[in-house]
């Protein structure tokens, strides 16, 4: 039998290779095992810490799985009604242009009920950042069809698979936003591997810089998984995402500034 080492023996300065950013609170995340939200939160918090933004950051959290985001990242927060975060953020930034303002929204929030708010805020070029988590399903309410659910994909409201003839086609909101004159930097990333985490973090850092320069709306889509909603293990869900989500929602920049 292996010797069980006590936690106190492990937590020593010489063993420290990584630590939690101080911007993340000690509250226990409400997410399912393997969910991408936790990783997305952490890199967002790391950027806020590394860029020294805590004292001037105002986040707008959505309705959806990340509704309690304000419990996890130690900055000032406003909780918006479902889909309305871009309208809320518009006023915050207009009234306090010196602050760092961002929204964090899921696919139901941003691409279904909040379609008008998303398009018009981006079209006006409102100078804030949107983090868009696209996992192709309504996670919080228990796995219903989202605007981004893939053709044929099963959910509790498309139990025989999404029939595009009767249920419509998956909406590529990020492509729409990229086509708008007011958007400045639009990219699609993921957080399911270490390499992808680095790329996403780099994208968020770019958006922070662009906001400082008053460049317009920056949108970072993070194609993510939903092991519970997709009824898969975390590993299966990541594989399924690579094989099915990425072909429909290809990773990479959709709109980059002319530098």
């Amino acid at each position: 039998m292996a010797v069980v080492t006590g936690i106190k023996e492990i937590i020593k300065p010489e063993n420290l290779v990584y630590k939690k950013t101080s911007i993340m609170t000690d509250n226990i995340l409400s997410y399912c095992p393997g969910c991408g939200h936790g990783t997305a939160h952490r890199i967002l918090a790391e950027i806020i810490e590394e860029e020294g933004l805590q004292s001037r950051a105002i986040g707008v959290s959505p309705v959806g799985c990340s509704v309690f985001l304000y419990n996890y990242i130690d900055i000032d927060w406003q909780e918006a009604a479902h889909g309305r975060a871009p309208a809320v953020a518009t006023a915050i930034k207009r009234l306090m242009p010196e602050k760092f303002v961002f929204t964090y929204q899921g696919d139901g929030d941003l691409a279904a009920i909040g379609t008008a708010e998303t398009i018009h805020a981006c079209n006006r070029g409102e100078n804030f950042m949107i983090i868009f988590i696209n996992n192709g399903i309504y996670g919080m309410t228990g796995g219903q069809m989202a605007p981004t659910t893939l053709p044929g994909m099963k959910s509790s409201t498309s139990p025989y698979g999404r029939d595009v003839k009767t249920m419509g086609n998956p909406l590529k909101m990020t492509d729409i936003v990229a086509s708008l004159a007011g958007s400045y930097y639009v990219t699609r990333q993921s957080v399911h591997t270490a390499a992808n985490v680095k790329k996403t973090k780099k994208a968020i850092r770019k958006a922070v810089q662009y906001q400082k320069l008053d460049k317009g709306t920056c949108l970072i889509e993070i194609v993510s998984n939903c092991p519970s909603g997709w009824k898969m293990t975390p590993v299966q869900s990541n594989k399924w995402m690579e094989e099915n989500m990425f072909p429909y929602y290809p990773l990479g920049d959709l709109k980059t500034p002319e530098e």
Partner: protein
Amino acid sequence: MEKELRLMKGNEAVAEAAIRAGVDGYFGYPITPQTEIIEYLMEANPAETTGMIVLQAESEVAAINMVYGGAACGKRVMTSSSSPGISLKQEGITYIAGAELPCLIVNVVRGGPGLGTIQPAQSDYFQATKGGGHGDYHLIVLAPASVQEMADFVDLSFELAFKYRNPVMMLSDGAIGQMMEKVYLSPRKERSKIVPDWATTGKPPTRERNIITSLELDSDKQEQFNRKLVAKYNVIRETEVRYEEFQCEDAEYLLVAYGTSARVCQKSVQLARQEGIKLGLLRPITLFPFPTKRINELAGRVKGILSVEMSAGQMVEDVLLSVNGKVPVFHFGRMGGIVTTPEEVVENLKSKFIGG
């Protein structure tokens, strides 16, 4: 400084008063009969003078959520609309009430239901005074009866909104919004630099993070919050009732009317008295809180009460509750955008109470 005398529409007076009151932001969407408010503000371009932000949103829904965002930063922010647009704003209004945010919502009421008419009505009384959106909440509701009051109530609304951290609705109507009267405008105030301690302005190391939300999944905590709101509304009921009386001292019959109807009823009182009928008028200025106690007192001194409103009978329910069976109470009102005449009111009073 002296007040400035101008001839203006009610809608224009609200807009000019907002600039002068040091409002930080206006977010709106065009709808008749209140569009002059945003037109006036865009023309005045206060961003260049007071720094006030004026933005035309993509919808009433977006506009009220912009108000939410601005109010949560501790700013003095407002929106305006007319009945169908106010219905669209109800989601945002209940979130604002639930998050206890101060703001001003102006409703220049037109007839409904549905798209209805663009002519004046008072058919949004229930929606304004009983909540309007989902959940247990109240707005503080001010009912102007003149262009002067549309101007004056801007500043009053923000005073009350910040005192109680509660949204305030100015419930006007298409007649007062559109008509021109002389108005004395207060001198321009500086925009407030006070940052409320609950506002989201970026978390300094010296305080905990501020969270503006109306979400509470724990039923016990949600009920505690509901009780806190009830307590607040009770303080408002005790403290903020405003009304005006016209020839009530010797009145044998009483009219209760607000806004445009109250102006009509003032003439009705004169006409009735010419015929020897001792008629008085109570004009509620606050519709929430309603002047319940005063109406109950007056009910002990009169023979009957007629509630006059441009609706199918909405405020009359609050009058009935106030009177509590002491004397007969009836409703009289025109609808569909028709403004009651003073003569109609007197005829109706006579037919219901006096006979013949």
